[in-house]
């Protein structure tokens, strides 16, 4: 992860419209956010699309970043993009169908190409509800504290903690 001073310089460059600094921002965040999207959707094409959408939005929104945790700011936008995506009825339907297809294929065809391989974790994650899965992935990929996650979700930290622990316990049981 970039040091906070370096990151501040990169962000300033991005605000000034530097493509080089945006490329650095992509290098820093693309992996984590892609992982976050991939674990939420289980679909690489969809993750590609959502990641592109995120960085496209960042170009327009970067000037509104006024300080504080940049990770928190970025992941809040990432989460909003995913939720917007889910709210789209047609796409949500496609996502559910894709998930069902993936699970079906996993049963009949356990090993696909490396890129398309659906690991055990992805199968178990699909068994959690959307909110719980999103919460666990946000916690793991964003590297934010529980307090920051509660702020992003606009709910008391106790509520976030309770939901997160329930999901984690369930996932642990599924994976063991």
């Amino acid at each position: 992860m970039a040091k906070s001073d370096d990151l501040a310089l990169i962000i300033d460059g991005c605000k000034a419209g530097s493509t080089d600094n945006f490329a650095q921002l992509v290098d820093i965040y693309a992996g984590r956010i892609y992982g976050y999207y991939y674990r939420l959707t289980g679909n690489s094409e969809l993750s590609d699309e959502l990641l592109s959408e995120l960085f496209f939005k960042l170009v327009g929104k970067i000037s509104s970043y006024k300080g504080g945790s940049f990770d928190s700011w970025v992941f809040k936008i990432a989460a909003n993009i995913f939720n917007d995506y889910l709210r789209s009825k047609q796409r949500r339907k496609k996502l559910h169908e894709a998930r069902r297809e993936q699970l079906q294929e996993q049963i009949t065809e356990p090993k696909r190409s490396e890129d398309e391989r659906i690991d055990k974790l992805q199968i178990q994650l699909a068994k959690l509800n959307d909110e719980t899965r999103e919460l666990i992935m946000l916690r793991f990929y964003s590297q934010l504290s529980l307090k920051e996650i509660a702020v992003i979700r606009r709910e008391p930290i106790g509520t976030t903690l309770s939901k997160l622990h329930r999901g984690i316990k369930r996932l642990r049981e599924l994976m063991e």
Partner: protein
Amino acid sequence: MNDRNEENLKELFERFVGTEEAQSWVEDFDKVKRILDENPAPQPSQELIAAINSRIAEEIRLRKEHTFRRLAYRLAPVAAVFVVLAAVGVRMMLKESSGTAERVRGPIISASVWESENIAAVDRNLLVLTTELDELEVEFANLQSDEIGGNGSSALTELEIEFAEIDTDIWEG
């Protein structure tokens, strides 16, 4: 930044549940973290990263163009007002300078009259005026000598009348 690495989970959990349960929660969190570490998600392809960077560059270019165009549209009316004001100013200055030139070009008595040795040939009116002035000079001299030698008041009145007439002639042109 309130990074999760600096976060004391056990302490946090203990604020909501008992000490024993908090310990169990910490173990659940640690276990799931290990599971996720052992099952890393795929990374974005280099093609995707290149496509994203290209899209960002294009978007920045479009935004800069848009900003410039918007600025130009905002400044255009102001620039137009300045151009109109400048045009009016220049026109007024030219008019003023041409008026001055006219005044310079139009003296009361032309240079030919000043330079001429023979005024009668140049301006007849001026000749008449000069003759009258000469006659007046003579009469004034005569009156002065009469005044010294006797009573010349009636002649002085006539002279004053003649002066008044000449004055009128001069200003009427």
